[in-house]
């Protein structure tokens, strides 16, 4: 989580020089961004012909680097190249930089959609009914609105996203009040957007 890259990380990164191809480097970089896994360590060790211990350290270092770039939103080659020490292998440095730049937009979008939040409103359905009678009034003509809100909790402990839904009934007055509130939000939003 802490976004720092130290010298030891750069030493580990040089293990990538053992990669058989540029695509192999790319593959390891992209997979490492997601995090450590047994599978990744094993496949990296196999691809690069290094021990699993070394592979684990490499993955960790790549993870630190990609998160550093993401956290500080480094978006130009110069910014990323500047992180590397002087002594770092020049071509590898350029390749890693290129890979990081290629993927940073995707990673940013992913981070944004995975960030913690309250359950998100994903879907909204409504229906308007006409109430024509009740147990205390035999004839009437009163509109009422049912709204179903479907929410997805991105950080549920179940691991996968949990979907919950709630259906509420609104009288005409309630709907007017809601629209009033939403209108005020919209007005304030346009003030903020205008700044």
């Amino acid at each position, binding site marked *: *989580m802490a*976004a720092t890259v130290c010298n030891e990380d750069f030493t580990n990164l040089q293990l990538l020089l053992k990669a058989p191809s540029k695509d192999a480097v790319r593959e390891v970089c992209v997979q490492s961004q997601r995090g450590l896994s047994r599978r990744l360590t094993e496949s990296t060790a196999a691809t690069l012909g290094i021990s699993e211990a070394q592979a684990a350290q490499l993955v960790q270092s790549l993870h630190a680097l990609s*998160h550093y770039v*993401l*956290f*500080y*939103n480094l978006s130009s080659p110069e910014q990323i190249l500047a992180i590397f020490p002087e002594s770092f292998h020049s071509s590898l440095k350029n390749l890693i930089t290129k890979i990081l730049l290629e993927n940073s937009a995707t990673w*940013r979008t992913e*981070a*944004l959609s*995975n*960030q*913690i*939040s*309250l*359950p*998100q*409103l*994903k879907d*909204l359905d*409504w229906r*308007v009914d*006409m*109430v024509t009678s*009740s*147990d*205390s*009034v*035999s*004839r*009437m*003509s*009163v*509109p*009422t*609105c049912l*709204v179903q*809100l479907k*929410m997805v909790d991105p950080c549920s402990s179940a691991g996968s996203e949990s979907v919950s839904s*709630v*259906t*509420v*009934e*609104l*009288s*005409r007055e*309630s*709907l*007017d*009040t*809601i*629209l009033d*509130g*939403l*209108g005020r*939000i*919209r007005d*304030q*939003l346009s003030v*903020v957007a205008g700044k």
Partner: protein
Amino acid sequence: MQLHFTKDVLPDSVGTDFQNLNKLNEQQFHRLIEILFQFLLEPKEAERFMQQLTEFAGEHGMSAGPLRNLMKSVLLVPQGALKKNLTGEQIKEDLLTLGTHPSPLGLRHYAALTRLAVGQTLMVNQLVDMEWKFGVTVGTSEIQKLGTVFLQLKLVVRKGNSTENVYMELTLPQFYNFLHEMERAKASMECFS
């Protein structure tokens, strides 16, 4: 007796009760109408209703028992009228048929009562309150600098006798979609007015 507010055959005692209403002076009559409608507007307050009648009986030198029975008869009219959606005219006719004078005060109260009865119509998961806040996410543990707008809503939903809070978050596009859909729902409701 042909009555609007009920198709049932009323026992004679009911007719007598209504006649007895005429024995009250205007002040007493008005007070009884107030007590009656207070009960009709808050039907759960049966104890209070009985207590008020007992007090009234004491104040005016009447027996509480017969007064209570009288009021039970009188209650039949507004309750029946409500169920059958009677107009003011029809109620007046019924009261005259029963041998008592329609009271303008009573009729005004009845109008308020019809509105209340409609308002008390069963609602499932009624939305009773909505609170919101919106702001800007300035950063997260993954991204140091952000400027995304979020909106958080708290809906208070009545479930039976208690309320439940539902919390949710909306992105800007979700908010505009929500607003748009609610406007469409309102337009649909207005078609029926």
